[in-house]
C-alpha cells in the first residue's frame, strides 16, 4: 500500500509541477535560512574537546577589589595573578595542571635568505600538551624537569616547520628566537579547537599559537602577556617584578581532576588557599573560588555570540513563514483536487486512506525540500563566509558535518508533515461523490 | 422596450466560424412575459447573453429602453445592466459566503444607493418573497426553491425594467419549480416585463408569447413540441 501511495504522490507532484516546485522551494528556503544559523550556533556551542571536557577544570580565585566584583553580578576574575598562579601550581594538588599565557616572539631563520618573522607564542608549563591532547606530527612536548631547569625547549607548529625545515622531522634541531636558541621537542599538527577554549580571554575563535615555550623562561625574560592584563589595584613599583607581585591578572590556570571526589578536594584546597591569602592581607572579597569544566567555562564566558542567538530566533520566524506558505499551497492544491478525492471516497477509500495518501505526498515534498535545503544551507554558509571575508577561523564555523545534514533533512520532513496536517485533515472532510458533478 | 434588429453573433477561432445568432430581430413591449425556447445549441443562450448585455454582438442593432447599445463602453454597459436588467440564473448564482441580506445587496452596492435606502429595498423585497425571517441565513441553509426566490429578490431589488431569466427552474424539483413559476407570474401581473429562456415547452407555455429559436434564427410561432420534449 505504501508503495502505491508513493506512486500516487509522485504522479500528483508531476501533474502539478509548478505548485509542487513552489512548495519544495518554500520548504528549502526556510530550511536553508534556519540551518545556516543553526549550523553556526551548533559549531560555536560545540564541545571543542569532547573526550576530555569533563576532566579539565578552569581555576578562578577571587583576588579582586573589595568595592566591585570582577564580573557582574559577583563573579571572580577570569584570569589569575602571577602570585596565585605560581603558588597554586607549586602546591601540585591536581593530577595535572597547566599555567600559561599568550606572548609573542620573533623567529630568526638561520640562513641568509629568510627574513625574521613574528610569531604568536604561548608561554606555558609542560602539562599543556597531554592535558589538551594536542596532536603532534613529530615528537611531543617537554617534561616537568625541563620546566624546572628552564631548558630552552620549544614546540613549533606545522606552518613554522614548513617555513624553517621544509616540513621535515625537525625534532632535536634548534631555532633562534629573539637571540636565543631553543631545542625543538615536537612539531604540532593542525589543531583547530572550536572554540579556542583554553584561553577565551583573548578571542574565543581564532588560530592557536604558532610556538610554545616554557613559562619559566618567559618569566625570566620578563615577557608580559600579549592578551589582556587587568589590575584593580595600582602596581607597586615600575618594573616587571612589580607586575609579578601585583594584583594584576594575566594568566590562565587549568587543572585535571577525575571524579567528584577529586573536584571536591581541590575546591577545599582552593578555599584553604584563599584563607591563607586573607591572612596575608590579600583577597579582600568573600571567598568565591570556582572550578568550571570546559563546557561550563564556555557558558560563563558567553562564547556563543548574542548576535547568533538573535539571528536564530529570526531564522525560526523565517521558517514559520515558509511553512505557512507551504500550508497555503497545499490547501490550494487539495481544494483543486477535491474532485479526485471525492471520487476515491466514493470508490471506497476510507478517511484514513485519504489522510495517508496526502501525508505520504507531503513527505515526498518534505524530503525533496530537505535535500534542496541542504544545498541552500551550504549556499548560506558560503554567503556568511563571504560577509566575514578573510578571517580563517570562519571556515571552521561554516562547515556542515553529518549531524547537521541529518538535522536539516529531519527538520524538513517534520515541517512538511506538520504543515500538511491541516490541509490533509480538510481533504478527509470532503464527502464521497460530493464533487463529482463538477468533475 | 427591448428592440433587436438583425442581430448576428459570430464566434471566430483560427479554424472555425460559428454563427450563433443569425439575423435575429425581436421586439418586447413593457409588461410582456416572453419565453424564448429552442433545443440546446439553438442559440438561446447567446440571445440571453446579448439581451443581457453580457456579450457584444457582431452585427445588427439593439436598443434597450430607447437607448442604443452598440457603441457603449464596458462601464456604461455595466451601468445599464445594473439599472435596467434583473438576472435570474439557472444555478441561482448566489454567493455562498454571504448571507441572504448581503446577497440581495450586491447589485444595490454598485448602484450607489445610501445605506438606508438599500436596507429599505432589501427588507421590502425579501419580505415579498416570504423569507423575511431568514435574512441572516446562508444560501447553503436554504432549499433550491428558496435560493431561487432569493435570486429573484436580488433581481427585483433595483426595480429593473425587465427580468431576464435563464432556465429559472432547471435545477429545481417540480414542486419548487411550480412555486417559482407562480412567483414569476405574480411579478409579471404587477407589471414587470419578463423574458425567460428555457428548453422546457410546458414552461414556455405559461408565458404569454413564445419565440422559437433554431440554428440561431427565429422560427415561426408554433413550438415544435416533439423536438422541445426531446431537447
Amino acid at each position, binding site marked *: 500500500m505504501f508503495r502505491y501511495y508513493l506512486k500516487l504522490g509522485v504522479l500528483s507532484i508531476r501533474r502539478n509541477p509548478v505548485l509542487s516546485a513552489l512548495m519544495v522551494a*518554500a520548504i528549502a528556503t526556510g530550511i536553508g*535560512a534556519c540551518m545556516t544559523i543553526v549550523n553556526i550556533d551548533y559549531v560555536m556551542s560545540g564541545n571543542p574537546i569532547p573526550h576530555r571536557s569533563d576532566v579539565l577544570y578552569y581555576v578562578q580565585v577571587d583576588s579582586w577589589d573589595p*568595592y*566591585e566584583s570582577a564580573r557582574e553580578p559577583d563573579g571572580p576574575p577570569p584570569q589569575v595573578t602571577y602570585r596565585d598562579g605560581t603558588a597554586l601550581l607549586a602546591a601540585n594538588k591536581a593530577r595535572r595542571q597547566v599555567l600559561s599565557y599568550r606572548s*609573542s616572539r*620573533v623567529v630568526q631563520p638561520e640562513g641568509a635568505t629568510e627574513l625574521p*618573522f*613574528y610569531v604568536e607564542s604561548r608561554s606555558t608549563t609542560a602539562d599543556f600538551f597531554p592535558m589538551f591532547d594536542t596532536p603532534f606530527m613529530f615528537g611531543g612536548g617537554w617534561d616537568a624537569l625541563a620546566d624546572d631547569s628552564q631548558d630552552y625547549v620549544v614546540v613549533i607548529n606545522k606552518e613554522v616547520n614548513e617555513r624553517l625545515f621544509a616540513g621535515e622531522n625537525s625534532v632535536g634541531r634548534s631555532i633562534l*628566537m*629573539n*637571540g636565543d636558541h631553543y631545542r625543538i621537542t615536537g612539531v604540532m599538527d593542525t589543531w583547530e579547537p572550536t572554540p579556542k577554549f583554553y584561553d577565551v580571554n583573548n578571542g574565543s575563535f581564532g588560530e592557536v599559537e604558532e610556538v610554545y615555550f616554557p613559562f619559566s623562561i618567559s618569566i625570566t625574560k620578563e615577557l608580559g602577556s600579549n592578551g*589582556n592584563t587587568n589590575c584593580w*589595584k*595600582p602596581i607597586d613599583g*615600575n*618594573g616587571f617584578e612589580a607586575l609579578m607581585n601585583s594584583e594584576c591578572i594575566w594568566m590562565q590556570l587549568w587543572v585535571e581532576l577525575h571524579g567528584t571526589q577529586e573536584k571536591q578536594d581541590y575546591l577545599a584546597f582552593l578555599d584553604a588557599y584563599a584563607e591563607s591569602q586573607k591572612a596575608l592581607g590579600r583577597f579582600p572579597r568573600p571567598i568565591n573560588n570556582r572550578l568550571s569544566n570546559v563546557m561550563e567555562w564556555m557558558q560563563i564566558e558567553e562564547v556563543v*555570540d548574542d548576535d547568533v542567538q538573535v539571528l536564530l530566533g*529570526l531564522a525560526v*520566524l*523565517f521558517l514559520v*513563514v515558509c511553512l*505557512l*506558505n507551504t*500550508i*497555503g*499551497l497545499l*490547501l*490550494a492544491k487539495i*481544494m483543486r483536487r477535491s474532485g479526485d478525492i471525492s471520487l476515491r471516497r466514493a470508490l471506497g477509500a476510507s478517511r484514513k486512506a485519504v489522510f495517508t495518501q496526502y501525508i505520504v505526498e507531503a513527505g515526498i515534498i518534505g524530503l525533496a525540500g530537505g535535500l534542496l535545503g541542504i544545498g541552500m544551507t551550504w549556499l548560506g554558509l558560503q*554567503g556568511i563566509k563571504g*560577509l*566575514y571575508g578573510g*578571517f580563517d577561523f570562519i571556515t571552521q564555523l561554516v562547515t556542515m558535518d553529518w549531524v547537521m545534514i541529518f538535522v536539516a533533512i529531519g527538520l524538513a520532513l517534520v515541517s512538511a508533515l506538520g504543515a500538511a496536517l*491541516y490541509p490533509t485533515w*480538510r481533504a478527509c472532510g470532503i464527502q464521497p461523490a460530493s464533487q463529482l458533478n463538477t468533475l | 422596450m427591448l428592440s433587436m434588429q438583425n442581430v448576428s453573433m459570430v464566434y471566430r477561432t483560427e479554424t472555425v466560424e460559428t454563427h450563433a445568432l443569425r439575423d435575429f430581430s425581436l421586439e418586447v413591449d413593457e409588461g410582456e412575459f416572453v419565453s424564448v425556447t429552442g433545443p440546446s445549441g439553438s442559440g438561446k443562450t447567446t440571445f*440571453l*447573453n446579448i439581451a443581457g448585455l*453580457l*456579450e457584444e454582438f457582431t452585427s445588427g442593432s439593439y436598443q434597450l429602453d430607447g437607448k442604443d447599445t452598440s457603441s457603449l463602453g464596458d*462601464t456604461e454597459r*455595466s451601468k445599464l*445592466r445594473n*439599472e435596467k436588467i434583473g*438576472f435570474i*440564473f439557472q444555478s441561482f*448564482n448566489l*454567493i455562498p*459566503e*454571504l*448571507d441572504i441580506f*448581503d446577497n440581495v*445587496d*450586491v*447589485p444595490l*452596492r*454598485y*448602484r450607489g444607493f445610501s445605506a438606508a435606502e438599500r436596507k429599505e429595498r432589501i427588507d421590502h423585497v425579501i419580505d415579498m418573497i416570504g423569507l423575511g425571517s431568514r435574512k441572516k441565513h*446562508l444560501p447553503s441553509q436554504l432549499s433550491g426553491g428558496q435560493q431561487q426566490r432569493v435570486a429573484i429578490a*436580488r433581481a427585483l431589488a433595483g426595480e429593473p425594467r425587465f427580468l431576464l431569466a*435563464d432556465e429559472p427552474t432547471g435545477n429545481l424539483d417540480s414542486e419548487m419549480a411550480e412555486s417559482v413559476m407562480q412567483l414569476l407570474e405574480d411579478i409579471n401581473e404587477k407589471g414587470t416585463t419578463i423574458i425567460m429562456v428555457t428548453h422546457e415547452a410546458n414552461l414556455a407555455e405559461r408565458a404569454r408569447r413564445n419565440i422559437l429559436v433554431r440554428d440561431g434564427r427565429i422560427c415561426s410561432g408554433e413550438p415544435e413540441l416533439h423536438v422541445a420534449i426531446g431537447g
Partner: protein
Amino acid sequence: MEIGPIWRALIRNKSSYVLIALQIAATMALMVNAISIIQERTRLMGRPSGVDEANIFQLYSMNFDPDIDYQAMVAEDLDAIRGFPGVANAVMTNSVPLRQGGWSQSLRIEPGEDDEGTGTAIYFVDEQGVDTFGVDLVAGRNFEPTEVMWFNPDGGRKWPESVILTRAMASELFPDVTPAEAVGKVAYIENNLPVTIIGVMDRMQAPWKSWTGVERSMLVPMKRGEEFARYVIRAEPGYRDELIPQIEKMLAERNTGRIIDGARTMTEIRERAYMEDSAMIKLLVFIVSLLTAITSLGIVGLASFSVARRTKQIGTRRALGATRPAILRYFLLENFLISSVGVITGAVLAVGLNMWMVQTFNLTPIAWYIIPAAMVTLWIVGQGAVYGPARRASLVSPATATRTV
C-alpha cells in the same frame, strides 16, 4: 465601499486568508525587529572615532636583537618617519581607537581607594600626538616637549604630571563643568597620584567599540616599551597608500635587528572592529527582503487560486452591474482587509518579540515610528502582489455567469 460584506465573507471562509494574515504578521514582526537592529548598528558604526581616519595608518617594530638601544631606536625612527616626504606627522603610542585592544585606567577626583573611579582609555603619546591623531583641542593646550617622559622600569614617577582628556571624560569626572573650566583641575590616577588636566579634546574613541565608556580617553605624555614599538603615522592627504610600503622598507633597512610588521590603515581597523555589525546589517537586509518576497509570492499564489475558484461569482457580479474597476477594487479591498489583520497582529507580535529580545539580549527597544512604517510597507507589498490576480479577475467576462459548467 463594500467593507461589511467583504469582511463577513472573509470570516465565513477563513482558512486560506488566515494563512496569509499570519504570514504577513510574521513578516511584520521580523521586519520591525530587523529594522530596529539595523538602525542601531548603523548608528553605532556611524560614530566618529575623533581621529583623522582617512590618512592614518599604524605599524609596529618588534626587536629581537637584545643589544638594541630601544629609546635611541625610537627617537631615530620617529625623526626618520617625520622627515619622510608625504608624512604629516608620526608618534609612538600603545594603541589606536577601535583596535579592540589597549590600556585603561581609573581616575578619581579625590585621592583614596574607597569609591569607584571612572575608567578611561589611555593613549601614550608625545607632544606630536594631538597633531598626528588629528584630534581637536577645545580647551587648554597641547603638551610641551619637556612634559614628555620615558617610563623608567627601575623607579621614579609612574605617570606624567599633565594629561589631556576627552570632553566626555572631563564631564564624567566633573559634571556640569565646561571644558574650559575643567582645564587646571586635578584628578588622581592609581588612587593617589595627582595629574593635572591641561587640555580637553572634542572626541577620541577608546579601542573597545562596545564599551560603555567608549568616548572616554586620555592622552598621556609618556613613552614606554622595551622590545615592541607601535608607530601611528598620519600621511598628507592622498599619500597614505604609497607611503606604507615605503616606510616599512625604510624602517626595516635602518635597523635589521627588528622586524617591521602589522601595517594597517585606520580604515581597515574600523572595518575589522565593525565587521560583525556590518555583516549583521547585510544579513538582516537580505533576510527581510527574502521574506517579503516569499510572503509576496504567497499572496500572489493564494490570490490567483482564490480568483480562479470564484470565476462564476465574479461573472455574476459583473452581470449584476459591477464594472471592471469595481471588481479590481473589490479584490484590492479584500486583500487590504486581510493585510490589515496581518499587520495589526504583526505589530503586536513585533512588540512582544522586541520586548523579549531587549530582556534577553540587551537590544535597543524599537523606535515607535518603525511600526507604522512597516505596516505601510506591507500594505503596499500586499496590494502590489494582489494586483495581478485582481486585474485578471476584473477581466472575467460577464458571460461566465450564464455558463452551466
